[in-house]
């Protein structure tokens, strides 16, 4: 009886998991399917899931109209650059907050996170003016800086959570063996926290890849990443859904592949300490 109940609940959970996954994945699937339709089919009042004339013309047009690989390289440089630079700053910050706590550490952490709650448009003009004066508009380095600053609170928080899981005794032992701060961080802490650091890096690459406010405002022709590439296919007058879908698929496929191969690492990293 108990086995029967277990099987039944297993089946229900499996079905529920598939349903939720299907609901989450359906918009992506629909975008992929739409990218193979003609424009009139894409906006048809009675849309068809598979039974239509599949075409690659949207991909051909998107590739001929836009410099996809320039946008792709900009996305790679900006997202990787911002994530690596962010790690360089976040690791020592999280280390000090986790292992050299003061009475203000908690408040500082909360304040850092609170900056994420500010609507970005609130600081648009000051940042734009700073970028203009420093010649950073439409440059990759400018975007790397702004993406780093945007994602830094999340990086510090994530790393802080991982570092807190590491017993202080290990670091104390290293100190007793004569390790300095540099050795303590690079030779003791980082190897132990590597899964957490990897998942922080991956998550921030994804966040920076998908960011579509600053990347659209601060770039023009030179540093525009794939978000700008997608935005160029929306139109107020004329049919565009199929081409927009093709552009979206081309923009998300690289990050989907990265997510697919690193999903174990990501899940492991994200759930680290979650059941504490």
């Amino acid at each position, binding site marked *: 009886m108990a086995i029967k109940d277990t099987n039944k609940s297993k089946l229900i959970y499996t079905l529920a998991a598939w349903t939720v996954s299907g609901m989450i994945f359906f918009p992506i699937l629909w975008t992929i399917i739409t990218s193979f339709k003609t424009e009139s089919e894409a906006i048809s009042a009675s849309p068809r899931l598979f039974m239509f004339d599949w075409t690659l013309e949207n991909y051909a047009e998107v590739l001929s109209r836009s410099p996809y690989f320039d946008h792709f390289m900009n996305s790679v440089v900006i997202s990787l650059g911002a994530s690596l630079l962010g790690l360089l700053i976040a690791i020592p910050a999280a280390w000090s907050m986790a292992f050299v706590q003061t009475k203000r550490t908690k408040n500082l952490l909360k304040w850092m996170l609170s900056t994420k709650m500010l609507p970005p448009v609130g600081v648009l003009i000051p940042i734009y003016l700073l970028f203009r004066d420093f010649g950073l508009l439409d440059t990759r380095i400018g975007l790397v800086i702004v993406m780093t600053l945007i994602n830094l609170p999340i990086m510090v928080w994530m790393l802080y959570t991982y570092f807190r899981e590491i017993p202080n005794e290990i670091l104390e032992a290293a100190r007793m063996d004569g390790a300095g701060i540099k050795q303590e961080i690079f030779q003791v802490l980082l190897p132990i926290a590597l899964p957490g650091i990897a998942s922080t890096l991956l998550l921030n690459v994804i966040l920076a890849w998908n960011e579509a406010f600053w990347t659209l405002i601060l770039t023009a022709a030179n540093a525009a990443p794939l978000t700008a590439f997608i935005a160029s296919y929306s139109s107020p007058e004329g*049919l565009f859904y199929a081409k927009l879908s093709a552009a979206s698929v081309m923009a998300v496929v690289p990050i989907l592949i990265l997510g697919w191969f690193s999903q174990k690492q990501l899940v492991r990293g994200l759930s680290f300490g979650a059941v504490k």
Partner: protein
Amino acid sequence: MLKKLSLIIASALTINAAAQAETITIATVNNGDMITMKSLSSEFEKQHPDIDLKWVTLEENILRQRVTTDVATSGGQYDVMTIGTYEVPIWGKQGWLTELNGLGDDYDIDDLLPAIRSGLSVNDKLYAAPFYGESSMVMYRTDLMEKAGLEMPKAPTWSFIKKAAAAMTDKDAGVYGICLRGKAGWGENIALLTSMSNSFGARWFDENWKPQFDSKAWKDTLEYYVDVMDKYGPPGASANGFNENLALFQTGKCGMWIDATVAGGFVTNEKDSEVADKVGFALAPDNGLGKRGNWLWAWTLAIPSSSKKTDAAMKFISWATSKGYSNLVADKKGWANVPPGTRTSLYENDAYLEAAPFAQITLDSINSADPKNPTVEPVPYVGIQFVAIPEFQGIGTAVGQQFSAALTGRMTVDQALQSSQRLVERAMRKARYPK
């Protein structure tokens, strides 16, 4: 020695700079005519080997946000901007745009349609050159009209439109008599309803900038709109903008569609439209008050005052808005694809008139539009489907949301108008009107 070295370096830099072509960055929208311009721009680069073009193509709202930020902060990211007739008078007055006084001797500025040129000038100085212009008109299914036993006049009234919508509606067959914009937004339902309200004698503000949504004319406008859409419009109309209605019309779901004249090319395009050979055109309706419900819009090319490459930018604008460009498009893509609504000479061209069956209606609609006297009574503002003040984007969208709510039935017409009156009064007080 050091002096010599500096001289050599300086000379090398100068020679290098002279050898390099000047690059201008053009921000534009993703509309068919702009895509054609981009694809033909290699011809310009051939004619001007000293100028390289870089393109930034974006969706209208994103583009508006970006170029507004850039021009207001003198960011200097763009040398040529695609902006609309709403922005030009405001930005021209602010000194954010460079006057277009060097378009060349052969540009023939007097050939520009007077209504369009007037909307792009401040104190008789031209601040933007029109790339394409549009008004609005009635597009209708000739077969359904015939089946209903009616004949569309060249200049219909709103009461005829209602009668025709009733006669053409066959909900069982999925055919709706009329399709109109319902999606909330200053460039969406408000464009239609403001133009429509002009023909009912309504206005946004009186001469003292007092909002007028408590007037009978506005009530008549909104009641007509909600009633006709409720009875003869498609389901879910509050989500429909230009593209959604275009898709409905092209697939034979609409008997009539009142929208931008630029749609004429889409609905008669046999590749995409199932009803391409069954479409007729008429002027936007009126109510016998002397004003029709048509709007006036142009996408234009302008140079922000922050650009340091004014000469090159001016050359590009001159090329892209010239008669020569129209001929180039006609040569490469056919006359039907020439950007409409900017030059008188285009409407004197038999080849164009033959290729574009909606050409004459477009011209008549544009010529009948008067942005400085948009409605029956006098107004303190310029603009037909918008009010050319910086606050309009915000209040237009907010009022659009009230009207959209009236369309869905979440609000009555009276509630929507009262709410609009309150929120516009508040916004105008805050902005300290009258100025």
